[in-house]
Every structure is written in C-alpha cells, then in structure tokens.
C-alpha cells in the first residue's frame, strides 16, 4: 500500500509531505513509544493519538516514513518542522485509532506489532 492509498483509506489530511508514492508494508498503532520501539519492521508506518516531538523521533529511529495522527489530533509546529527536516509524511485523520487501523487492515495492510 502506498501513502497515497493510506490517505484515501483514512480520508486523511496531509500536514507535511514526503514521498507519497512510498510503499508501506506494515503499520503499528500505539500511544506508547517504548512499545513502538520494541517492534521493528521495514517500511512501516505509525498511527498514534500522542502529540509530542518524541513521536517524530521514535519514527525516525525506526526509519518510518509516515505518521498518522488519529481522532483529529494535530501535530505541533515543532513536530512539523522535525518531520520536514526528515522528509517524513505527517497525516491527520478524524477516525479513532481502532477504526483507522481497521480501515487499513481491511485494505490489506498488515500489523507491524503482532509478532513478539
């Protein structure tokens, strides 16, 4: 699934734009960054309701190219700047976490956090 397709699935707004043609293989939905850091997958993206700069840094450490903020949360200006410097795409969706993950899963995007 490309980031373009993620945008369609979540009816998402693009806050800052990296490579929207990038393929996403797995996704991880969590507000606990330490949990996110425990599960590394290639070409993964993060869905979260947490809003602070550590979300962007966590995504950076995991080489994630896209972060989606659920339930209408908006990233701060500092976060947007961090993401732009890292060529990372930030999206927002009005859907809540469960629904957002479900919409992506139903379109074939697997979990990045389901293996221990």
């Amino acid at each position: 699934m490309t980031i373009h397709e993620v945008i369609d699935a979540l009816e998402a707004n693009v806050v800052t734009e990296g490579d929207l043609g990038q393929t996403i293989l797995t996704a991880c939905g969590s507000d606990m960054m330490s949990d996110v850091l425990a599960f590394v997958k290639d070409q993964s993206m993060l869905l979260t309701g947490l809003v602070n700069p550590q979300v962007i840094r966590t995504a950076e450490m995991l080489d994630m190219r896209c972060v989606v903020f659920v339930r209408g949360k908006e990233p701060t200006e500092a976060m947007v700047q961090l993401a732009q410097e890292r060529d990372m795409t930030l999206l927002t969706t009005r859907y809540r976490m469960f629904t957002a993950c479900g919409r992506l899963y139903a379109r074939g995007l697997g979990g990045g956090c389901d293996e221990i």
Partner: protein
Amino acid sequence: MTIKKRYEVSGDDFTHAGEASGQVKRTLRQLGYDADAVRRASIAMYEGEINMVIHADGGYAEVEISPAQIDILLADSGPGIPNVEQAMQEGFSTAPEDVRSLGFGAGMGLPNIKKYTDEMRIETELGVGTKVYMTIRPGSKAE
C-alpha cells in the same frame, strides 16, 4: 579508523531528548553502515537518552565508531538503579505518571536496549549515578 564523539544530554527538556541519537544515526548512515546496525544503534541509544532525561536529569553520551563495532556509553549522575535485575524486566517501571502520558515509562527502555545491542553492561551506584555501556556489531543479529 575510529571516530569518537561526545554529546551532552540535557535533563530539563524532554522535547530535545533524542537529538544526540538522531545525530549518531545520521553519522552512521553517512559512514555507510548497514541499515540494521544503524537502526539498532540509534534505537538503543535513544532509549538510553530518554531514560537519562526521565530518571537522571540528563548526562552525557560518548560514542566510538569503528568498522567492526559501535560502542556507546551513556553516563548520568542520577539516583542510580536499586535493583538492576528488576529494572531489566519488561514492564517494570519507576517512571512517574506524567512521563507515561508522554509515551514512555512503560518499562521497555532497558529491555529494548538489551534486545537491540550485541553487548550491554550497566554500572550503577545509588546516589552516584549510572553508566550504560552498549556495543553494536554490524552484520550480527542481536534480536
């Protein structure tokens, strides 16, 4: 050739936690280390950096980069760890509630560092501070 770098980790601003790890990540990438080693080193250092901000009011990091391995030392003058064995267990945390609301303090920091490194050693003394030594070897599979 060995490259040595030192970073100060500020303890009073959670916003900037992870800056040193991000810089190390970019340096390793520029030097051409494989993606897995870069990711393991940066995640482990990032978790350590977050720990220093949460528990110890900051400290410093020393990173030594050579072709065979990446050595990282994170040192603080915080309260020390009373029971290292307990602290290494997944889910054990002494972090305050406000840290959890920031997405950390789930008791995954030290276990994550162990998971992503080839070697990890903790020296700690109550009331004096803690030193966490980590080694990452490119091409190995620590996980």
